[in-house]
């Protein structure tokens, strides 16, 4: 399918551009369809394009040497990924995988330079987008380096665990995120860490505390 101006308008990189400018940019953009589970980019490989999600969602993640996955973000329609390497000429900083069927718009590095030269407004928009990405990453660094989110989630689970004296309210990821003062993505990650450490087990609609003492120790770190 041809690249659509309407979809370009919804991308923050192109905010404030008039229809003629969007039409000229459209010529430099290519469309790519990706199937669920397909890996779009691999960390540390040479980068030649940045991508915008126009439908579906993409998971951007890093993988440790022992295969542990760290999700950096989920990219939703209108948002971009792989911005950094096309600007600094380095390799891909993370891997990207489609979490469902996805349609992407891509711009090759050389074409992006042409767009930036011809449309100064785009440069300002890019600064804004990259600044927002830095805010998100700084918040993630804070969560990971101080480990306090996992401890807070452990504490929440201990507080909400049913001890047989009466019904306790059920908890959603959103509620846990609000209570722990973090993003929903961090809750999934924290629960996975607690499961890996043997303190809990996730089973259907239950979070089963399998080692209360271990969970208490984590809560107190």
């Amino acid at each position, binding site marked *: 399918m041809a690249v659509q101006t309407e979809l370009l308008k919804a991308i923050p990189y192109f905010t404030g551009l008039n229809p003629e400018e969007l039409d000229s940019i459209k010529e430099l953009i290519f469309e790519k369809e990706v199937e*669920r589970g397909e890996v779009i980019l691999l960390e540390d490989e040479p980068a030649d394009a940045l991508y915008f999600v126009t439908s*579906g*969602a993409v998971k951007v993640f890093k993988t440790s040497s022992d295969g542990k996955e760290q999700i950096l973000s*989920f990219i*939703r*329609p209108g948002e971009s990924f792989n911005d950094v390497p096309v600007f600094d000429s380095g390799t891909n900083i993370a891997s990207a995988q489609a*979490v*469902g*069927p*996805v349609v992407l718009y891509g711009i090759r590095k050389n074409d992006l330079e042409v767009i930036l030269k011809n449309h100064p407004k785009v440069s300002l928009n890019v600064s804004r987008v990259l600044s927002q990405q830095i805010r998100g990453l700084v918040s993630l660094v804070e969560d990971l380096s101080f480990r306090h989110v996992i401890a807070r989630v452990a504490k929440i*689970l201990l507080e*909400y*665990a*049913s*001890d047989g004296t009466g019904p*306790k309210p*059920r*908890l*959603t*990821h*959103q*509620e846990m995120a609000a209570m722990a003062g973090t993003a*929903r*993505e961090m809750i*999934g990650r924290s629960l996975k860490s607690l499961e890996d450490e043997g303190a809990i*087990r*996730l*089973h*259907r*609609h*239950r*979070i*089963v*505390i*399998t080692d*209360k003492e271990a969970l208490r120790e984590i809560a107190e770190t």
Partner: protein
Amino acid sequence: MADSPVIEREKCDGCGLCIDVCHCNILVLVDNVITVIEEKKCVSCNRWCAQCEMICPTGAITIPFDVVIEER
């Protein structure tokens, strides 16, 4: 007790991202609002993955968990 994702219809904007991420194929759009079909299949993965809740940009889907202590 609900045994599947809980949908707040008025919050759903019909974007369909949750359908894409659902491994168990239990979500469909009906009149542009997300709807759960085949509730029991939500546990095909034997655990509630909560990907739909995580991806939803408007917070329309929630997966409520019971927190219980394992009896020894």
